[in-house]
């Protein structure tokens, strides 16, 4: 670990952390500000929703969800927070070392007296710190919104904490898988398409799988591993599925170090 690199990297993430945090707070406020009217007309809404095709409800994560309860409603908002956090983490992961190669600054960094594993560890720590800060904002805004808009309703704080804790592993999945992908391709020309493809792609897979009623996709996408409806209904995670995410993280981290330590840094053509 090199504190010099950590500071530099974190400095480079800072603006993005602020942007994502503001976006997440905005979307939470937006959704929660309409919650009171949802809750008021809950009966009407439930009746209306039974008329929608099941596939459509599945795709938007609305199947079997009672939107009138606070946690039910939150699990619907949670999905959008998940998508944003997924893209943020994938962005950090894909860009972690590939940006240096794309902008040709890798030569500078790697000719300093530091080992590659130190570079990797410092960069990962900086990305992790950035994600943790974003998640802290999610925690604060979640509790803030729930308390501000709950009206006379109550919610189970332990389930809420469980949901929020899951975000850490969820983001780690996108960070590390993004990283290993960036090291497997020859050259990442632009980070954003990869990050969007990974973040949105796995969301679509989860939604699409719902539509088809195909459960095999559950194995692949962390949107399924960390499905909020399951947590709200059971008060616990679907542990075997969560373990798939954990395994993917471990494999990705090991593979990333292995690949990076052996990588030939491309020269300016």
């Amino acid at each position: 670990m090199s504190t010099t690199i950590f500071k530099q990297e974190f400095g480079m993430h800072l603006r993005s952390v602020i942007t994502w945090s503001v976006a997440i707070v905005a979307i939470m406020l937006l959704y929660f500000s309409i919650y009171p009217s949802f809750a008021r007309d809950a009966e009407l809404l439930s009746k209306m929703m039974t008329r929608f095709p099941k596939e459509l409800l599945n795709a938007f994560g609305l199947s079997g969800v009672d939107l009138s309860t606070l946690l039910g409603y939150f699990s619907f908002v949670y999905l959008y927070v998940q998508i944003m956090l997924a893209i943020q983490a994938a962005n950090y992961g894909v860009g972690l070392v590939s940006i240096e190669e794309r902008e040709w600054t890798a030569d500078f960094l790697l000719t300093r007296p530091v080992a590659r594993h130190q570079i990797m560890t410092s960069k990962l720590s900086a990305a992790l710190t950035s994600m943790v800060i974003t998640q802290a904002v999610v925690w604060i805004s979640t509790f803030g919104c729930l308390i501000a808009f709950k009206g006379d309703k109550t919610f189970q704080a332990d389930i809420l904490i469980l949901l929020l804790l899951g975000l850490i592993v969820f983001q780690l999945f996108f960070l590390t898988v993004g990283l290993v992908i960036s090291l497997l391709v020859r050259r990442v020309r632009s980070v954003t398409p990869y990050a969007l493809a990974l973040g949105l792609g796995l969301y679509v897979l989860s939604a699409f799988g719902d539509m088809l009623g195909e459960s095999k996709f559950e194995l692949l996408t962390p949107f399924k591993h960390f499905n909020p409806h399951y947590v709200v209904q059971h008060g616990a995670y679907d542990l075997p599925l969560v373990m798939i995410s954990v395994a993917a993280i471990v494999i990705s981290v090991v593979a990333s170090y292995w690949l990076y330590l052996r990588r030939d840094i491309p020269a300016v053509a």
Partner: protein
Amino acid sequence: MSVIEASHLTKYYGKARGILDVSFQVEEGEIFGFIGPNGAGKSTTIRLFLSLIYPTSGTATIFGKDAIRYGPELRQEIGYLPSDVFYYERMKVIDLLNYSASFYNRDCTRRLHELAGLMELDLHRRIEDLSYGNKKKVGIVQGLLHQPRLLFLDEPTAGLDPLMQRKFFQLIQQENQRGVTVFFSSHILSEVQRLCNRVGIIKEGRIIEIADIHTLQQNNYKKVRVVADGLDPAHFDLPGVTGLEHHNGVVRFFFKGDINAVMRRIGEITVSDVTIEEPTLEEIFMHYYE
């Protein structure tokens, strides 16, 4: 003990050739010129020593230690100036240089400002606003600020105006007088001729000659020019003659061997002018590449 040693160093990029069986040594305090055309393997060799890339086979050692295994520790003493310089565009020059300095286990502040002053570098501009030549100056300061004992310069003068080139050469010579060993890759022979003690010539990934720069010039070829009326170039068709040219009564050629053979031939005819001189490195170099 050699400062740099390559031993049967080979690098393939997949199936593409990088360098093949490259072996050489550079002694302490030398300025070693590494010449060859684009794509010959100059940068590949330097990048192997900096462990930016890993060899397919063979070993690279610096100060007697394996360049890869002891890379981080060795790089405390290594300065590197690439041919194309790229830095974090959004940073200010001073921030980049301080960032660089923070990696070394010594205080670089004084030397940093000394070098920036010498190179007339504006420290408070952003990297993205700098011209190519100014980025190059950042590169020079960055490569020297930690007072390394070994310098890798990869075609360093590209993008520097003549005045800055001169300053740069003076700087390198001063560093060398302090005992710094310099590995200087270039395809501009006049600068190698001016600066280096020894040269290695690389062609298509292989070292084809390593020689003292003076030996290279003296022992090998003479450049001969003879002016005479009605001269038949066949008159100089001797063993050891190459590049024979005839143009308007002027015959030019390169000769390797006993110069008396040429002198006798010249003595047989009436000439209006004769010059026999050492070829420039450029001409020797072209010869190697034909």
